[in-house]
């Protein structure tokens, strides 16, 4: 009996020592019992933007649950709506899919589009869209550099001329883009050309890593492809984007999306994240994308380098 009592007391003593050691982490974090669950899109840019937010918030003393590169856009959206994620990264232009019933014109304007989705999501879903980065990752059409030089293609007007001359063209794009007024349909109307079904390859998704790979390799005779303005592989694959002076597709600026309850609890997050995002431009985002997708550097490392280079964080990071 006595022996058993001693064991129990020793056990409790050890357990309390262990627990107190764990407890000391409470002082380290502003939200020790309530980590902020952060997600982002599974693609390259999602990795960079997600890690940027992760690093900058951790630097300011917040505890986060790292779900960066969580999944495809619809999976992240669902998770935010369900409350499975506290925070995510989305694009203002995607508001066209979330806030139904608004005119397509709104999304082609940076301020109006942001205002529209901000109001809609705050009212309907309790989701707050923070100020977006001024880096319009919009949709565009890309061609090979040699092809452009050979055929004198610089803008969409040139492409329209090329197509109307009956020359060989094969476009690879997402079905969604091909059917939208703020997409291919609008471009065809604005620049005066029309592509037949056999001149298009339609994919069920908008994964430009695939479309650009097909373009670069000339798979299936593809010579025009859907691209995003900040795609990192453009330069290395010798691809150029055709200028779109009439700006047909929506404006897609990256913006952090936070659940209202979380932002109310930790309002300083807004300032921290918006500050970090304010340093982003189309050019440096594209450069970061390139480092990840072409050079194969980890997105966390690239995000960290960016934050340090711009003196947004300076403490040592553990990764």
């Amino acid at each position, binding site marked *: 009996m006595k022996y058993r009592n001693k064991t129990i007391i020793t056990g409790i003593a050890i357990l309390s020592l262990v627990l107190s050691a764990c407890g000391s982490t409470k002082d380290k974090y502003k939200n020790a019992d309530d980590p902020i669950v952060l997600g982002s899109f599974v693609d390259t840019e999602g990795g960079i933007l997600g890690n940027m937010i992760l690093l900058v918030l951790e630097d300011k003393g917040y505890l986060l649950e790292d779900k960066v590169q969580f999944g495809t856009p619809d999976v992240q959206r669902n998770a935010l709506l369900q409350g*499975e994620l506290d925070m995510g990264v989305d694009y203002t232009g995607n508001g066209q899919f979330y806030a139904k019933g608004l005119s397509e014109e709104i999304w082609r304007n940076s301020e109006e589009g942001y205002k529209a989705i901000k109001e809609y999501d705050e009212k309907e879903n309790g989701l707050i869209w923070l100020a977006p980065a001024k880096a319009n990752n919009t949709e565009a059409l890309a061609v090979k550099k040699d092809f452009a030089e050979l055929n004198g293609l610089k803008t969409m007007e040139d492409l329209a001329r090329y197509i109307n001359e009956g020359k060989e063209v094969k476009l690879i794009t997402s079905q969604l883009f091909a059917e939208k007024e703020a997409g291919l349909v609008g471009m065809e109307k604005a620049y005066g050309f029309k592509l037949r079904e056999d001149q298009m390859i339609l994919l069920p998704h908008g994964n430009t*890593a695939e479309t650009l790979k097909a373009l670069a390799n000339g798979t299936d005779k593809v010579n025009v492809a859907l691209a995003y303005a900040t795609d990192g592989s453009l330069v290395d694959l010798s691809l150029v984007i055709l200028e779109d002076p009439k700006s047909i597709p929506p404006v897609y600026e990256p913006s952090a999306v936070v659940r209202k309850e979380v932002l109310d609890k930790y309002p300083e997050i807004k300032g921290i994240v918006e500050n970090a995002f304010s340093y982003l431009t189309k050019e440096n985002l594209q450069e970061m994308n390139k480092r990840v997708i*072409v050079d194969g550097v980890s997105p966390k490392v690239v995000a960290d380098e960016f934050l340090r280079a711009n003196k947004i964080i300076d403490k040592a990071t553990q990764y």
Partner: protein
Amino acid sequence: MGRIKDKPLLLFSLVGLLSNFLLPLVEVKQNRISNGIRMSAFEFIGLSELIITIFWIILIFLSFYHHGKKSLFVFYIGAISMVFQILLIGIRGNEVVSGSLSMRVTFAASFYISMLMLYLILAESFDALKSRKPMGILGIALIALSLFFGFRTGLFSSFSIFKEFEVKKDQFFISLWTHSFLSFGSVLAGTLIAIPLGYLSYMRKKLENAVMVPLSILETIPSLSLFAILLVPLANLGKLSFFKSIGVSGIGWAPAFVALTLYTLLPIGRNTLVGFSSVDKNIIEAAKGMGMNKKEILFKIEFPLAFPLILTGIRIALVQTIGGAVLAGLVGGGGLGSFVFLGLAEASPDLILLGVIPIVAITLLMDGLLKAAYKMLRRNVE
């Protein structure tokens, strides 16, 4: 034709030798995404590749001889060829890449074909080893050890799949752990549910359909649809504090785990039913005659006799689940599927391979282990 004693060996070695000469062995890429320069084995490695050619010729030569003593020789030549080829590519790859972060070497057709041929040759000669099996197992261990050694000393650092691994090392091991938890965990949970269910269907004939038909219907539901169906109930369950604390929600590991468990119920349940049904009624009668009560008969006679078949059901469920757990990556559940989907998103075949190769390796390993366990059990039972 009668002079060729080992036709499979001849076929495999010929295919291997031809691919060595005619097809590209590797593709040297400047960076992760652009197409690279394809090179055949001799273009890339040079004259050292002759060692491998000689090995192929020896194997062709050996196919004119009968089995028996030669199997061990064939096995070791095959094993050495496999290791040497990979090492040669690694050494030359390091020279070519020489420290560049983005430049890398990817395997091409001839590599995959010769590895497949060597695997077939190894499998065939291993089966023929009979009493010399321990030597064969030693050979497999040596292959694994030399590859591990090469990996650790940086001999494979120019391989594109290795470069992807380096960048995502931490995520890889976390995914591996999550994947194992999902696969083994759900098979364990399924076993705990399905064995009683199977036994129940055996005991009461009336319940057989009531149990087996729903399970069969479950099996036919496509995995993604099942995840979608589970989304709402699990999301609601996740609102209760106990379930929230263990991470149950509409997305994440929970729907994957539940769905995978549900899929294991049919193979394990059905095999349990068949296993018990296959026990010879005479043995049970004899046991009753000896004075054993119901519980003793169940645990000492019926269950041990039924177990080999139940184990087969578990093996089938496990093989099915290790692969099926890939889909967890689609609902944010982690596991090796995240690499597969990341690879699809970034159009990087190496990331996809990084997810798929471990799955295949673990599946083959578990399948082999459980088959061996089954053979041992059958021998004991008889």
